[in-house]
């Protein structure tokens, strides 16, 4: 490694693999808890119940952040291979990163404000 730049992409390479493995674990858990039967995922109250549980909240907030990190980093890895003009590459990446940050906010807001619909028994 000659400079900081190549060191940075070595970390990116490593964390792309680690975040990918974590996402596999997340995705299996997500499919089993939410999509195993129609009733589990498609019922409003069971979804609200799930998302008011701190453990599931932590789970999904991590899922959203890791998903966008892995996806945006992956898109950058792809685009970098096509030797685009720097201005074009960073315009596209800027838009995607801005959109990803907004959707991380949307996801956080959904997970953290859904408790208002919880039925009091």
């Amino acid at each position, binding site marked *: 490694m000659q400079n900081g730049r190549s060191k940075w992409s070595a970390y990116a390479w490593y964390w792309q693999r680690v975040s990918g493995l974590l996402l596999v674990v997340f995705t299996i858990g997500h499919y089993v808890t939410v999509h195993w039967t129609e009733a589990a995922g498609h019922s409003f109250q069971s979804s609200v119940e799930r998302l008011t549980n701190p453990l599931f909240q932590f789970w999904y907030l991590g899922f959203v952040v890791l998903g966008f990190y892995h996806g945006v980093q992956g898109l950058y890895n792809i685009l970098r291979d096509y030797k685009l003009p720097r201005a074009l590459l960073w315009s596209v990446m800027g838009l995607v990163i801005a959109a990803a940050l907004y959707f991380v906010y949307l996801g956080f807001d*959904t997970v953290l*404000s859904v408790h208002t619909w919880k039925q009091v028994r």
Partner: protein
Amino acid sequence: MGVEQMYMQDFSPFRTWWSILRRYRWHAGSVAWILHRITGIALLGYLFVHIWALRSLVKGEAVFQAEMELFTTPVFKVAEWLLFAVVLFHALNGIRIVVVDFSARGAYRQKALLRLVYAAGIVAAVLMGVLIFFDPFAV
């Protein structure tokens, strides 16, 4: 003349792409590499769609139920199955990439691992098809 100059002299994008495709080495590993990129871009797009769709959770039960009704129609069931196939390939091939990159002998076994990816993927996709279209655990 280097390969790069050959691409540069042709300014028609379609002819350029066609010449890239013709020159491409269509080996099992490179096909998996292309599929990994295509499925990866699709999944990033889907992550946006998924979070957008689940905004219905903060709009109340009626909006959410109406949306879930839509998701049980046959078109969406087929779409969900295709989505699962995309997730499955990206996840299994991703595990293969980690094994190839991090294990001492992984690179020598990449083709066998790829066969395992496709075999396990087809089995899991069929099982998911049963779950989606026949719902055996329905109460």
